[in-house]
């Protein structure tokens, strides 16, 4: 048994997520919503047997009951998401938000997926690609000892950053910084994003710097970091430690590379994979809860 889901947004993220969702044991993608009739994502969705519309989320609303859509993944933009979410939640659809709008609580699966179980949340936010790639490692340090400040630098290939990401760059830095604090456990967080146009495109790189309050316990932190990397690799196999942890006084630095599966964009776009794989993992958790009956369908008007 699977739970039917809609993909809202037919850009890079929505399309990559669709390709992963088609392989899921818990989630069954049935709709893709776009706004551009010529979008490549919508064409791919039609080829894969999904119903599609280019008339935005409103066109989906009439089909929610007939197609039994219970989960929607929103990969539009931070500006559009609040209105999409309001409409979908009103119809009883649970929303997994892949934009940096961050209306709902943050979910970074290897750190806090378990905490979301049984909470009856109607909107869960996936922070950002950079957040998914780095917050697990901030948490890996902060679970060993207090982190006063954590900072991440996410560098992605220009080709992997669509127009939504580009318009929302401030939302990316703010939401990621908040996620570093709330989910990563750092007292203060900062996020930096760089788009690099090199050809051939560079594989996503992420650097995580933490300042611990006391002298870092090198052995414990190194062990914790390696264990966390293993957790992330369960859903993003190309999540790889390049260097570190490096210890310099109270600074702990970790240098990561994220290679994707090459589902929609080529392998360099690990930023897509880490986001879509985390979102799918979250959607699957919600689906599992629905199937097990531990989650009532959270319609406001139901």
């Amino acid at each position, binding site marked *: 048994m699977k739970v039917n889901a809609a993909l809202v947004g037919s850009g890079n993220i929505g399309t990559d997520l669709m390709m992963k969702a088609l392989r899921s044991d818990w989630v069954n993608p049935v709709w893709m919503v776009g706004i551009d009739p010529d979008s490549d994502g919508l064409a791919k969705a039609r080829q894969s047997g999904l119903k599609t519309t280019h008339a935005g989320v409103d066109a989906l609303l009439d089909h929610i009951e007939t197609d039994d859509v219970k989960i929607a993944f929103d990969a539009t933009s931070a500006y559009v998401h609040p209105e999409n979410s309001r409409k979908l939640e009103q119809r009883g659809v649970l929303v997994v938000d892949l934009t940096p709008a961050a209306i709902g609580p943050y979910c970074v699966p290897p750190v806090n997926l378990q905490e979301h179980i049984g909470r009856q949340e109607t909107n869960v936010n996936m922070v950002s690609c950079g957040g998914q790639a780095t917050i697990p490692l901030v948490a890996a340090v902060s679970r060993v000892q207090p982190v006063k*400040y954590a*900072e991440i*630098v996410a*560098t992605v290939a*220009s080709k992997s950053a669509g*127009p939504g990401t*580009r*318009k929302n*760059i*401030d939302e*990316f*830095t*703010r939401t990621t910084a908040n996620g570093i604090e709330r989910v990563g456990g750092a007292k203060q967080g*900062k996020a*930096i*994003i*760089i*788009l*690099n*146009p*090199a050809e051939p495109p*560079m594989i996503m*790189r992420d*650097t995580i*710097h933490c*300042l611990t309050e006391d002298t870092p316990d090198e052995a414990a932190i190194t062990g914790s970091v390696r264990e966390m990397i293993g957790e992330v690799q369960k859903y993003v196999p190309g999540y790889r430690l*390049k*260097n*570190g942890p*490096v210890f310099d006084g109270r*600074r702990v*630095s970790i*240098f990561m590379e994220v290679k994707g599966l090459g589902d929609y964009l080529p392998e360099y776009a690990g930023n897509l994979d880490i986001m879509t794989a985390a979102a799918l993992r979250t959607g699957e958790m919600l689906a599992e809860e629905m199937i097990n009956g531990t989650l009532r369908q959270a319609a406001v008007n139901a």
Partner: protein
Amino acid sequence: MDLTGKTVKLHDMCLRDGMHAKRHQITTEQMVSVASALDDAGIHLIEVTHGDGLGGASINYGFPASTDEDYLQAVVPRMKNAKVSALLLPGIGTVDHLNMARDCGVHTIRVATHCTEADVSEQHISSARQLGLDTVGFLMMAHMVEPQQLLEQGKLMEAYGANCIYCTDSAGYMLPDDVSARIGTLRAGLEKDTEIGFHGHHNLAMGIANSLAAIEAGADRIDGSAAGLGAGAGNTPLEVFNAVLDRMGVKTGVDVFKLMNVAEDVVVPIMDQLIRVDRDSLIMGYAGVYSSFLLHAKRVGEKYRIPSGDILVELGKMKTIGGQEDMIEDVALNMARARRELKVAQ
């Protein structure tokens, strides 16, 4: 070259680009003293922020001696004629920082992106314009694209609301013909009332020659810094450039002797090291590497016992761009490992 009768606005970078050369440790008192002296010499526009712009305070780029807010609040009220600008790199700083800078009284916001990524600046440029600020689009590492591509990016920034577009030679890589081609293409393709600017680095000692080429091709604003205090081999030394322009009959409104005195008596004494075309800066200019990497590479090179020049060459090969300072330590770690493995193998 005949530039007689032209008018050019000089924009001083000591207190922003110079922050790189000072590991961001210029004090508010030093900022006030340098800015006041520049103001007195007749400089129109003075940039003040962390070297990597508003919000640049970080492990990656370095924590500054004071906050951007403190710097701006200290300098802006002391200016008699000069205006103050602030730099902002989307992805590092946000519109929140921009609003803060406006509240501190800055006149100009310069929104900087890599030369192919102008579309990340829409939020920031349109906000600055709506606030009524002099709004500049600043296209960095401009040697990496052809003039036509630079123009397309400049047009995006112009459409978002920038009233001035810069060709920025962040690596100090360009030669005068490169500058002429880019500035000329911008001048021909942008709106008539959009100003054009050039920001040079002196890594190949081309700061003056390139800035002259820029004026000849139609630039209205030229960046430089007194005594050249800036990243890499520094920016175009402004006191020298101003003297050259004076000889060539270009109007800048800046007093030749007063600016010399600012450079010699106020800026040089606060330098931590001589700003000159040393081997590493020359490598950056020759290989097209972002000038701000210089001191980071020297520090990391010392730590891991890798020649800093080797690190810079590798960063150039990797096509790193402005902001990727985190890759400097990563590269050094890779090189240190490779050298250890080589030793073991021998």
